């Protein structure tokens, strides 16, 4: 099951769509884990002949399936961080008309979106589709540290150790949701952690 129906939320929360092939001479697809399935859903030989895929497997075995689509360029990296120099270089050399497709986890889409926007693409022109884990990339509003792949609410900040409440308040600039201390007024009174959407 790689698709998830997100509940309705505040306006700040990103909304993801469904990828569709758009006209253009060059296509950049950035995906992690089950995001590979969204690429496979729209892949055609014509589209793949003009496509650069950047894929982070996160322990899945989709790499070979994507390579079998025969994209113009295929790169598989060990982590998102490891792929950033490549993403930046591709965007630096790109021309208007480049179509950007982001798919997989929210953390990947958010961070890659930030690179694409910094390179000059309006955020509304970048396609996204969520697949796979619903874990969130969280920023602690107190110490500013980022904790990746947060699955429970509340959770413990990986940097300062505070107990943080998982908010739907999202920052495009940080590509992260906001985590706020849940027991500031009554230290130690921390609800039992549960899944973010439970």
């Amino acid at each position, binding site marked *: 099951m790689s698709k998830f129906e997100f509940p309705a939320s505040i306006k700040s929360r990103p909304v993801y769509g469904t990828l569709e092939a758009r006209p253009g001479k060059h296509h950049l697809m950035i995906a992690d884990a089950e995001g590979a399935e969204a690429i496979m859903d729209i892949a055609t030989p014509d589209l793949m002949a003009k496509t650069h895929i950047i894929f982070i497997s996160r322990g899945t075995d989709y790499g070979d399936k994507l390579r079998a689509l025969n994209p113009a360029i295929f790169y598989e990296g060990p982590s998102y961080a490891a792929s950033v120099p490549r993403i930046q270089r591709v965007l630096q050399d*790109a021309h*208007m*008309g480049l179509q950007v497709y982001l798919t997989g986890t929210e953390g990947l889409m958010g961070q890659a979106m930030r690179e694409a926007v910094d*390179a000059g693409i309006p955020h509304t022109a970048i396609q996204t589709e969520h697949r796979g884990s619903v874990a969130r990339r969280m920023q602690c509003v107190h110490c500013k540290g980022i904790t990746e792949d947060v699955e429970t609410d509340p959770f413990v900040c990986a940097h300062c150790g505070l107990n943080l409440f998982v908010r739907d308040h999202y920052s495009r600039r940080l590509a992260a949701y906001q985590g706020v201390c849940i027991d500031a007024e009554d230290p130690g009174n921390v609800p039992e952690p549960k899944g973010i959407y439970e």
Partner: protein
Amino acid sequence: MSGAEKIHVRVTEKTPLNALVTRFRFEPVDGGLLPTFSGGAHTVVEMKDGDITRLNPYSLMSDPYDQDAYTISVRRDDEGRGGSLFLHNQVDVGDELTISYPVNLFSLDLRAKKHLMIAGGIGITPFLSQIKQLDRAHGNWELHYACRSEALGSYVDYLTTTHPNDVNVYYDDQDQVIDLENLLDGQPLGTHIYVCGPKGMIDWVRGKAADLGWPREAVHYEEFLAPQPGKPFEVKLAISNKVVQVGEQESLLEAIERAGVDAPYLCRGGACGMCETRVIDYAGNFIHRDHWLEDDEHASGEKIMPCVSRFEGKTLVLDR
């Protein structure tokens, strides 16, 4: 009072540029400073021509930071309703006019890494102020300017002298055409297009950009529509409880104003959306000419933009 705030100005220069275009310089009557504006802004000039008051928008072409004076360039339209002819023939140095505060519906997107400007004919005017703004900020821009002939190429000499490497001029009568596909293809990521000129040119550029996969948000355009004359018709204004005859040479908005009803407006050219008016009842056909409403809204018979659109038929009742 509808529209932007007003400024009283005196015409201090009237400079014919060529057979069709004349430049006017306005300075404030009270000797004070004018507001600064942003490149691409326009002002609405009030013209009292006998019984008719015309309010026509013209792009400001002076330096946006120059608070001593505004300049506009007006192309004479012998077929139009007379606004440009009035300025050309009736307005002279020393005359006083009322103009609006600057309003910008064609501003630069300062997130752009490069500004690609495409102008046709008198559509050059907003770019003149945008270029001055960008030069001050060391912005990255280039201009492609198509005009009918050397004789009618307003500001070609000025532009090519001050910016020889950034300005490209194309003369229709020498069969020079912008090589649009090659111009758009290969522009660096972060380039925004700005196009101002005749409708055909705007449609051409927007269509080609869409074909090449440019985001809609990176393509900006401005086309001022002058209200076109048409058959007279009658309109009932429900809130004001007035019945107004719209003459052949006046717009629906002008007729509403003539009846003493204070209707909202800003651009008076079918672009800004300010004058959008709800239709309560009608029997007949709308002649929609604006860029504001969507096609389905045009078809719905529920809304009209009275600055440029007209009506033909028996009954028209507006929520005004």
